[in-house]
């Protein structure tokens, strides 16, 4: 088991090194930030001064070393566009994204597992079929359209909820939260549903598929042959076996919520890191793009590690021989 965890940690470090290299390559090879930052009327002196200020005048290897060293400290230099330290910009934007992601993730998880179990157990029922059809519409409906639809219904037509922004926020020790004000909570509703709905349908379909797979297993037949109640069979025997694969994908889904937040944040002009990233792409603001990439990979790698540890909690087979895996 220890060997397994060590291997997973090594893999995580590899992922971080690879993304780090991608991020660094972006700095080195992509575009000329100086050209992006200075307007048409520039002198060579302006260019040189800025190059030196951004550290672009140094050799490749030195830049790489400096990048790794500084990235580890969370320092990604100045934003080409705003001229402020990237870490400061990220820090003030992150709470908005994390709060949105947390609420959406909770929604997606509870709804997805609940509906997934329901549609698997009542496979031939009318309700299950309706939900499955709706979920297919949900998967086909791009996130941004869901957002627009919600805005149209609840903001434009009904006028119940705000269509953009975070509402009033309260600052607690450097963390801005929208949970504590009425307008903050109201502003959270539509973005959270928009972001959570797609993940919910994915999780639901996954739980359903896995559950149906498990319900076909011999031990379920045997449980039935032993006269156990349907509830015990579904929840005690089937659900637990469903959880192992579900946790993998769900874990990844929760990670991708942070990435998908980019879309939702754009639709609702939610002042989080996703909106920051999309603006960075539009203006080829490499330091912000690189920092976002590194931040996201650290989060994903962290989530993956947690998922791996959860396996051990659920599957006793893994506790004995570390090499077996549920994936």
């Amino acid at each position, binding site marked *: 088991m220890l060997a397994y965890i060590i291997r997973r940690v090594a*893999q995580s470090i*590899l992922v971080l090194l690879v993304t780090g290299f991608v991020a660094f390559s972006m700095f080195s090879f*992509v575009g000329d930030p100086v050209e992006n930052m200075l307007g048409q009327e520039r002198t060579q002196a302006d260019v040189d001064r800025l190059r030196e200020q951004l550290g672009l005048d140094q050799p490749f290897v030195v830049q790489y070393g400096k990048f790794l060293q500084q990235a580890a400290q969370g320092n990604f230099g100045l934003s080409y566009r705003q001229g402020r330290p990237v870490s400061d910009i990220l820090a003030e934007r992150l709470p908005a994204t994390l709060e949105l992601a947390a609420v959406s993730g909770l929604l997606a998880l509870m709804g997805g597992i609940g509906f997934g179990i329901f549609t698997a157990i009542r496979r031939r029922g009318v309700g299950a079929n309706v939900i499955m059809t709706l979920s297919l519409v949900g998967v086909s409906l791009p996130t941004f359209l869901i957002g627009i639809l919600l805005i*149209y219904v609840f903001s434009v037509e009904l006028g119940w909820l705000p269509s953009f922004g975070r509402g009033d926020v309260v600052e607690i020790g450097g963390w801005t939260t929208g949970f504590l004000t009425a307008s903050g909570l109201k502003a959270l509703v539509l973005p959270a549903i928009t972001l959570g709905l797609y993940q919910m349908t994915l999780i639901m379909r996954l739980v359903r598929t896995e559950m149906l797979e498990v319900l076909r297993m011999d031990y379920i037949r045997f449980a039935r042959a032993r006269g156990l109640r349907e509830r015990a069979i579904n929840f005690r025997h089937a659900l637990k076996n469903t959880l192992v694969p579900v946790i993998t994908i769900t874990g990844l889904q929760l990670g991708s919520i942070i990435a998908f937040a980019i879309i939702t944040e754009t639709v609702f002009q939610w002042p989080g890191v996703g909106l920051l990233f999309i603006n960075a*792409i539009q203006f080829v603001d490499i330091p912000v793009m690189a920092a976002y990439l590194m931040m996201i990979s650290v989060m994903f790698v962290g989530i993956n590690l947690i998922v791996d540890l959860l396996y051990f909690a659920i599957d006793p087979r893994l506790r004995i021989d570390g090499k077996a895996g549920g994936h």
Partner: protein
Amino acid sequence: MSDHQAEIETRRTPGRLARAWDSDLAYSFRHAPVAMVSAAVVLILVLSALLAPWIAPYDPFDPGSLNLMNGFTPPGQPNAFTQETFVLGTDDQGRDVFSTILFGMRISLFVGFSAVLLAMVIGVVLGLLAGYLGGWVESVIMRVADIQLTFPAILVAMLIFGIAKGITPPAYRDQMAIWVLILAIGLSDWVQFARVVRGATLVEKSRDYVQAARLVGRRPFSIMIRHILPNVLNPVLVIATISLALAIIAEATLSFLGVGAPPTKPSLGTLIRIGQGFMFSGEWWILLFPALTLLALALSINLLGDWLRDALNPRLR
């Protein structure tokens, strides 16, 4: 149970694909009204996109034909100034919404198909290489696949788009945007293809005839390919269909976010981005019709893919 095993054995007999294609698939299609309707919708949309230059009443990319006076004409009603009527109305610049949708769908479908083709080619080739060569080639390919899978495809596509945008000189950015989109979406979506093909290759590699070919000193690669490709045709087809829907949605999303097709060459996503701005001022048609078209396209392809997966029933998750 032994009876079950017997049944599974008979299902695996060679020629299954050909038989399924002849009888079972066609039968299942005839008895799946949803699949039939979806296929019809896809067919109509693809055809009208292909024939857009001929069936569109206006050429939205010809500045000469535009009349700003026609701006914001509601659907089906004559314009207050010019008395011209447009089936689905016009946008702010007086472009016929129906025509922009037809041409926009052309771009969406072109990007979608090309991206899936690219992903398929990359995935199949890398999958074959990984499965056949094994060793470090396989390790590298599958490790890259794993790392890429760690990130959502849309994020990878955005990143590729951002990098490519940085590399291209600003003057060419609009021109290159479509190709960059194809590259970004295609590169973000090859992993699934590679996994399936690699799996099939590994199975095939262990077969007796491959071992035999190896023993007599022949390179079994070409014979293998002839055996692998029919085996992976079903799952690859299913993945490609579902990927097509995903690629179209990805393209629309990127364009909507402003990191895709430019306003001068609008795809459905760009049109929705433009239309969103007029949602609050009451010009709903500029948003609604492109959105409905995108939904119809994505939904019918998804439904088709769903049916195909059930009908062919490859072991897909």
